[in-house]
């Protein structure tokens, strides 16, 4: 070995020795939790990707997206507003760590009283996906794998944004009905559409929660190229919902209506974060934005 | 004018009136008297068409009451209830105008004739000076006279008053009594349900005694309301005395238990 690498090797050995000693000297409570409950698809899938099998996962609301197959045998907890999972069912699983979101804030106090560690993890933008992946990694003691996963995710996101040819104006709305409850730039869906090359109709508007009820006048004036609706409903309802939206008289003159580019998105990938964020962007580009 | 025979009234599952008679004629005042719960008001209401009778015959000028509906009956008789509703924001003038409604067609406005009739009614009842007052600001006696004005605006030949004096003081009662007697003298047929036997004796041409759901006596007051009748029906030791000019007195042995 040449002098520089030899020095580096020795420095590395020292660092490792110090780290090992420090790790050995840490009290037992810093050990990584083994019994974890993940209430969202994002946290559940992230755990699966990190090679951890949670003891319980939250029921996926409002969508038919598939979870990692490794989670198939994991107990599913039904979730309901405002507390989230049934506390008794949760307690029966005896988790040490619960990965939750602010939606279930009401139930989190009770969870903490039962001695569980509760951490909210909800990426609200694509940039936060990698960051939150690393946070989860730190919580469960799989920092190295999490870092690798985070890098992978960021690369996927970057790749999905290559060669964007067109930047259509997009109106993204959720819920049923014709009054636009529109996604703003600071919502997950809004961020996905932006990164996929779309220009949000609601650009320039901010509101807490990321959604706002937008006047149809603004929709007509700003004339979107594409309208994407994310309604709730069973699979069988989607065709009728789609027909209802496509025949909205208020949108008659928009490019989206005239060019038959009013789409209904099934699944919840536009409503909340997904580990495979890059795939979400590619799907949006391919199916809706066509760029 | 009014002829009611064998009237039977059942409300819910209870038979209030078993068989009662009532006759009223123009220019005469008939007082219907009796203990509480005997069925006086029920008889008056049935005769006036406000309560359906389950048996018996009631006719006005020979026509059975079943065939007299709505405005037709309203132009034959006016009913003054015991406790009328006193709404907010309504003036005396407005109330008496309401009394005129049987004469005003569905989409017509009041005519001069109607307005005159309303004026006359208020004058006759002695309430013209209250025309702009709110009903809610009137005393008991004033309100009762307004009620009579409302009924007079109907310009019906018969008037049925259900205990108009029961909650009034002495002076107000006397005023109402005078008014009703004058109206009978003017030619109206007046049926007056009343508690006060002395008052009844003073103003009535005829008295009908109702007891336990039956009319047990009918005739001139002094003939009917004898000591025996008062003992029988009201279970008190009492007798009526009548002087001239409507001066009557009821003597009651209040403290004697007559059972």
């Amino acid at each position: 070995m040449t002098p520089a690498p030899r020095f580096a090797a020795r420095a590395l050995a020292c660092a490792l020795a110090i780290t090992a000693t420090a790790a050995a000297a840490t009290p037992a409570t810093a050990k990584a939790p083994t019994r974890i409950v993940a209430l969202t698809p994002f946290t559940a899938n992230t755990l699966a990707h990190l090679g951890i099998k949670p003891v319980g996962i939250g029921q996926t609301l409002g969508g038919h997206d598939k979870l990692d197959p490794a989670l198939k045998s994991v107990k599913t907890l039904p979730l309901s507003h405002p507390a989230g999972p049934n506390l008794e069912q949760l307690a029966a699983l005896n988790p040490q760590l619960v990965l939750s979101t602010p939606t279930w804030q009401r139930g989190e106090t009770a969870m903490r009283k039962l001695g569980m560690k509760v951490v909210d993890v909800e990426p609200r933008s694509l940039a936060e996906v990698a960051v939150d992946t690393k946070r989860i990694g730190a919580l469960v003691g799989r920092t190295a794998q999490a870092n690798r996963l985070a890098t992978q995710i960021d690369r996927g996101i970057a790749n999905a944004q290559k060669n964007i040819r067109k930047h259509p104006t997009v109106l993204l709305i959720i819920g049923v009905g014709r009054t636009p409850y529109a996604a703003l730039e600071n919502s997950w869906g809004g961020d996905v559409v932006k990164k996929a090359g779309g220009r949000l109709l609601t650009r320039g508007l901010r509101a807490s929660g990321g959604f706002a009820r937008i006047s149809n006048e603004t929709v007509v004036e700003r004339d979107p190229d594409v309208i994407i609706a994310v309604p709730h409903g069973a699979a069988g309802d989607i065709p009728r919902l789609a027909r209802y939206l496509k025949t909205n008289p208020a949108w008659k003159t928009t490019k989206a209506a005239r060019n038959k580019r009013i789409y209904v998105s099934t699944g919840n990938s536009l409503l909340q974060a997904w580990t495979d964020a890059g795939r979400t962007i590619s799907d949006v580009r391919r199916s809706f934005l066509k760029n | 004018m009014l002829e009611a025979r064998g009237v039977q009234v059942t409300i819910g599952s209870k038979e209030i009136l078993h068989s009662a008679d009532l006759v009223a004629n123009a220019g005469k005042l008939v007082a219907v008297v009796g203990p509480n719960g005997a069925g006086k008001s029920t008889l008056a209401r049935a005769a006036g068409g406000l309560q359906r009778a389950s048996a018996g015959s009631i006719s006005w000028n020979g026509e059975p009451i079943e065939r007299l509906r709505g405005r037709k009956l309203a132009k034959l008789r006016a009913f003054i209830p015991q406790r009328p509703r006193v709404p907010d924001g309504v003036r005396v003038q407005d109330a008496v105008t309401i009394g005129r409604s049987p004469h005003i067609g569905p989409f017509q406005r009041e005519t001069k004739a109607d307005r005159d009739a309303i004026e006359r009614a208020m004058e006759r009842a002695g309430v013209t000076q209250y025309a702009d007052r709110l009903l809610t600001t009137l005393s008991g006696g004033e309100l009762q006279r307004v009620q009579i004005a409302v009924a007079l605006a109907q310009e019906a030949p018969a008037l049925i008053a259900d205990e108009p004096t029961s909650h009034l003081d002495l002076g107000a009662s006397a005023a109402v009594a005078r008014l009703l007697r004058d109206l009978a003298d003017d030619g109206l047929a007046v049926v007056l349900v009343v508690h006060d036997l002395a008052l009844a004796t003073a103003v009535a041409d005829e008295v009908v005694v109702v007891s336990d759901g039956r009319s047990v006596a009918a005739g001139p007051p002094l003939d009917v309301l004898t000591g025996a009748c008062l003992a029988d029906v009201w279970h008190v030791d009492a007798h009526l005395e009548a002087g001239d000019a409507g001066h009557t007195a009821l003597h009651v042995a209040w403290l004697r238990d007559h059972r």
Partner: protein
Amino acid sequence: MPLRRLSVVMIAAVTLVAAIGASLALGAVSIPLRDVIDALTGNLDPGPFKQIVTELRLPRTVDAILVGASLGVAGALLQGALGNPLASPDVIGVTGGAGFGAVLILLVFPGSIALLPVGALVFGLAAAAIVFAVAWSGESRGGIGKLILAGIGVQAFFFAATTATMVIYSDRVQSAVFWLAGGLVSEGWTNTEAVWPYFAVGLIAAAALMRPLDRLALGDDVAASLGARPRLIRLIACATAAVLASAAASLVGLLSFLGLVTPHLVRLAGGTPSHRYVVPVSALVGATILLVGDTLARVVAAPVELPVGPFMVALGVPLFLWLLRKTV
């Protein structure tokens, strides 16, 4: 008409005309007044401005007038028929029923979303029908007490059913929340076309009921003496109010505040309880308040649309309290 009553009518009429102008001229998008007028007279070329004025603002203005007038009239009819100043479409169960009908479609059968106005209308009428069926039983048929209690019971039932549905389908709740909060939508003429016959029938019936309701003022006995049929009048008045309120709810969700407060405003300002004054003027005032409230709700935070309820309350309540203080 005495000066006081006339001036109330004139003020309300002038405000309504101004409000119509404002509703057509103002909105999330700035359109020059010239173009607004051209669009209405058919002189504007097709384009977003024309679309906005004729297909969004005009139907919405018409809806606001119809709904505001209907709710005002419904409240006046109910307060007159029931002799109770607290009467409003809530009392006969319509609001609860309509709310449940809408939530049923929004949350449980979202595929049938096109039937939303119909669902609200049908359930509103059904709830009222149950109330009437209960209140018209027994000897005290059509008596006020029984009617109000039946209304409270039915209302409570449907509200509970609505809440339960919202909890069961809690992930879909957002759509229902907006509808329940109440407010107009800019969706063109389709909804109006579906329900305008109900408004027409209701308003015509209300006009015919004005005199009969006046005859109930002195109580049922005096009304009977006059040859009126108080219970029948009460039933028809409540049924008419139910039709008007259900049709209103099917267009705008739950805005019962108008039905309760508008007739009081009119009575306090005009100084008379006569239905021949209160019913038509409640229509005028109700339409004005809703139209002004809706215009503000569209413009204040444009392009975001706020719910119209708070604006109506902000307009109506101070006026109401001020008038209340002035009365004896």
